[in-house]
């Protein structure tokens, strides 16, 4: 097992490459999802305010 993590002496290069890829892709996914959730919440709030407004024509 430790031989696997040693990567033939190149652990300092192989693992940062995989780690950077994993971190970057996961962070981008989370940021994108959180932005979508935030927009959905804002839309729901705005539509609720519009429905409650008595002067609204629709």
């Amino acid at each position, binding site marked *: 097992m430790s031989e696997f993590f040693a990567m*033939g002496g190149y652990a300092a*290069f192989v693992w940062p490459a995989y780690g*950077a890829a994993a971190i970057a892709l996961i962070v*981008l996914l989370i940021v994108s999802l959180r932005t979508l959730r935030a*927009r959905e919440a*804002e*839309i729901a709030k*705005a539509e609720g305010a519009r429905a409650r407004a008595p002067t609204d024509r629709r």
Partner: protein
Amino acid sequence: MHRFANPARFQRLAASILPWSAAASAILLGAGLYFALFVSPRDYQQGETVRIMYVHVPAAWMALFVYVNVAIASAVALVWRHPLADLAAKAMSPVGATFTLLCLLTGSLWGQPMWGTWWVWDARLTSVLVLFFLYLGHIALVNAFDDPTRGAKSAAILALVGLVNVPIIKLSVDWWNTLHQPASITRLDVPAIDPAMLTPLLLMAAGFLAYFITVTIIRVRAEILERRLRAMRLAQTAEPAGALVGADRL
């Protein structure tokens, strides 16, 4: 072309694709990592560092592929004024920038042990760095104006002008005989790579592609909602004058 111009139709289509693309990216990346880290052999010259290839090369392919997609979306936005094309270009370019950064980073981590340097001003490396700056410029331009349509238009022109860099990147390894090796997979005859190494490479590439589709769908959805919000706010401020132009467009 305009069949998908309707955001409601896009939302339906996107909603039906999303679970499949998300599942595909999880499965393909899982299998890709298994083959890349456990099954594939070490290289007879490069030892275990060859495993960096399974992240580096697919990231490089995606960097170019996403850029071409941003450019196509920009052309469609400029020529046909397709209402989703601007949003697609805006949604995709941060994804492409991420893949480009990963390509540069993993390339650096591969270059140090194998070439003996983190970075050289080699034609391939430099042109990919230019690609990264094009992405950054595109992201900055989209958000640079108060009027989002002006930002989208400027960014679209930048994306199209920057397209000239794509063939330069592809051919840089043939035009200039510098440190970076030429293509081993995307050539006309048989790939110059063993199937044991080609399998994880293609699995990772397919996984990155599925990931790109998944994240793009999520980001375009967010952009559509943002545009609808802006239209609603615009309609609200214009309410006394009775102007509701644009409020129901989305």
